[in-house]
């Protein structure tokens, strides 16, 4: 049993990962800085900003790059998140490649433009520095902010390292701007653990990125005096359902485009071989854990410890939440007895009071002939550390459920809360 091949660079490989294209530089940077590098490499035309931590760290790095003359773009600091997202929405309509982002309640303040961007089929790429939805001023990570738009036509993904943040941002442009898709995409980065920690990242060259990422071309949908069109006129019940169905079809097509983009990315950069999910020690796993974002780290540490004790446990990290990787998750989890889903979010009042990922996963696995038991765990809210001991506790419960013992799969357990 070997862990899945790491997609991150090996140490000591000065000047780039083995087999990596020439011109990659090695930098000690944070996840936010990695996103800023992706914007520079993608040669984004318009960026808007409004400060809220942890997203504001991206603003810092973007503005630094502009003032250092390393990056040329329209950089607009708006007077609110609502305007911030409106500005890039319109810029995207005229054919500009755009980037923006926010965190927590800032992201929710932009809800009106967030909702209509997908409807207008504008390929905005945003970074959500995941943050608790406040009160009282909490700024640690929770995933409910990005998840709030999960059914509105945004593609959503979660990354777990600064390297993956950079790579996924480049892939996001390629997917979002594909005419088969033309949907916005948000890259979620866990506040603190990803946005504020610096690790070694391989930064590709502009030339390599240019070869991977074609220019944004809206074709006959570009708002331009030479192409007189109207975007978003008034429609009512006689039109709207067809428009929604088009969006639905675009989201369905996104799967294929995402897979193509990863194949191409892997061929060019040597990273990112598995698009939708990461399978860790799953080959002979009897029980599995599922989660998103940086909590993958303590989970992997715990899985390795448990494997040494002979416990057959594996882990599936969900990279893309929308489109939801239903076939991949069905394939990965069909053979296990029980699944423990660790949500860094909450779903108050939902089925079994479970987390958002747990509920979606339960839906995805329901049609299976042999359904594993699914247990929901809420952990790490507001940025509370999820320790490998917490994960061991979860795994014990999942094994018991797999044996038909314990509290079963119709309850949700909060891990690491003070009773």
């Amino acid at each position, binding site marked *: 049993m070997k*862990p899945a091949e790491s997609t991150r660079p090996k*140490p000591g490989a000065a000047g780039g990962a083995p087999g990596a294209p020439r011109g990659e530089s090695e930098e000690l940077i944070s996840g936010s800085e990695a996103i800023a590098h992706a914007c520079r490499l993608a040669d984004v035309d318009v960026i808007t900003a409004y400060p809220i931590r942890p997203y504001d760290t991206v603003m810092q790095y973007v503005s630094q790059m502009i003032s250092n003359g390393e990056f040329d773009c329209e950089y607009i600091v708006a007077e609110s998140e609502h305007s911030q997202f409106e500005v890039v929405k319109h810029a995207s309509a005229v054919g500009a490649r755009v980037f923006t982002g926010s965190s927590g309640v800032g992201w929710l303040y932009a809800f009106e433009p967030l909702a209509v961007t997908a409807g207008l089929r504008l390929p905005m790429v945003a970074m959500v520095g995941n943050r608790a939805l406040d009160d009282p001023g909490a700024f640690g990570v929770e995933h409910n902010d990005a998840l709030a738009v999960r059914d509105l036509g945004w593609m959503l993904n979660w990354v777990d390292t600064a390297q993956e943040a950079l790579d996924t941002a480049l892939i996001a442009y390629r997917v979002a701007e594909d005419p088969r898709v033309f949907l916005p995409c948000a890259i979620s980065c866990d506040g603190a653990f990803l946005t504020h*920690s*610096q690790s070694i990242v391989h930064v590709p060259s502009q030339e390599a990125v240019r070869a991977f990422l074609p220019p944004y071309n809206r074709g006959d949908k570009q708002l331009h005096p030479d192409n007189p069109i109207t975007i978003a006129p008034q429609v009512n019940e006689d039109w709207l359902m067809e428009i929604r169905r088009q969006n639905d079809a675009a989201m369905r097509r996104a799967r294929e485009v995402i897979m193509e983009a990863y194949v191409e990315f892997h061929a060019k950069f040597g990273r990112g071989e598995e698009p939708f999910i990461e399978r860790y020690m799953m080959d002979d796993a009897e029980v599995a854990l599922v989660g998103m974002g940086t909590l993958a*780290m303590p989970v992997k540490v715990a899985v390795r410890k448990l494997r040494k004790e002979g416990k057959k446990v594996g882990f599936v990290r969900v990279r893309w939440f929308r489109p939801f990787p239903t076939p991949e998750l069905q394939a990965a989890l069909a053979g296990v007895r029980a699944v423990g889903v660790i949500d860094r979010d909450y779903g108050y009042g939902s089925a079994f009071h479970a987390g958002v990922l747990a509920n979606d996963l339960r839906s995805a696995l329901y049609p299976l002939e042999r359904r594993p038991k699914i247990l929901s765990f809420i952990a790490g809210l507001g*940025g509370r550390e999820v320790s490998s001991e917490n994960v061991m506790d979860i795994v014990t419960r999942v094994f018991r459920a797999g044996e038909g013992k314990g509290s079963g799969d119709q309850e949700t357990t909060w891990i690491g809360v003070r009773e």
Partner: protein
Amino acid sequence: MSTSTVEIIYRGVFQKTLAKNICRGVVLAARKEGKIGLAFGRYSDSPERNGIPAKQFAVVAHTEEELQEFLSRYEPDNNDITIVTDDTLCKGAESWSWNGLQPVNTMLKPGGTLLVASMQSHDDLVKDIHRRDHPYHLAVVKGSTSFSGMFVYKDDHTDVRLLGALASLAPHVVGLGAVTEAIREQWKSDLKVDSAKRASDLIRSLPIRPGQGNPETPHAFELPGWKKMGEGLAIPGIPVREHPHGWDGGFVPGRSPTFKKFSTRTQRPVVNFDTCKKCTLCWLQCPDSSFNIAADGLYDPDLEACCGCGVCEAVCPVAGCVTMVREEVFQDNQSQWQRWSKDKAGYKALLAGWTAHHEARSHGYHHRGQYAEEIANETR
């Protein structure tokens, strides 16, 4: 094969760049030795507040898997080295975002090294540092407190001197060769490389025995469980204490018993009660309501509430009545007024001693220039 961690405790905002340079220096040097690393700050300290104790960390590992343990943590708790960039922090650190005073050696592993930038002797520092059950080492890089903050970088070589000392004290974390290579690459300065080498040569550490040090029990706070907490985020106010000692007994405002502020302080006000005119200005202008009114109407700074901003000194109209004095001179937070009322002559002598340590600067690290001269002095 194991992971090593370095913790840096520094003054928020004023020393942010200094801490960052040290953390990045450790990770970049480790890279030169073929290891990998991670540099991060304690998220809950940020956005930083002026002078309030904050932390940054560097983790050095041999493999990706070892490093994973730290990729989702706020604070490593078993550090090989703890670096303290301002010696007044040796009295303990209370972050702005939590409750309780954390001794600077709390997260140091048994047998680890506490490395302090200071002009004080080992013996003087040990009096401030809370005692532990385990032995550890104390090392001092001689130097006045450095100011390399968010807005100004006073390039006095404190960052590279601490890196050089670290390489000598903990070569298993990073060796001097790698440190100097990383410094040359980052700063392209032979002078900075020389400073690191000199610090590495000069650094000596002393063993500290279990139980040796400050016997005080640091103030702590017990976090309640969710069933005990009141709902709806309604926090009871601290009761207003109306004349707690009777009408003629002076006045002590209600203060939080668990959130104090004194670890933010690098200077404290000392009051010459013999010259005070009771004009009320210090009491009125203090942003933290730190002044108690004594029974005789004099104003006595509560040194657990005072964060050392120096506003009282600035507004006092009487020359020499309120004087800001370097915090390192003091071992406790006793009431000055009580000392004065018990023994006026004795207090006068104390005051004369204290005010000899007056520093002509306002709150924090307002630096008034002279960089070139100081750098020349410290690198000579």
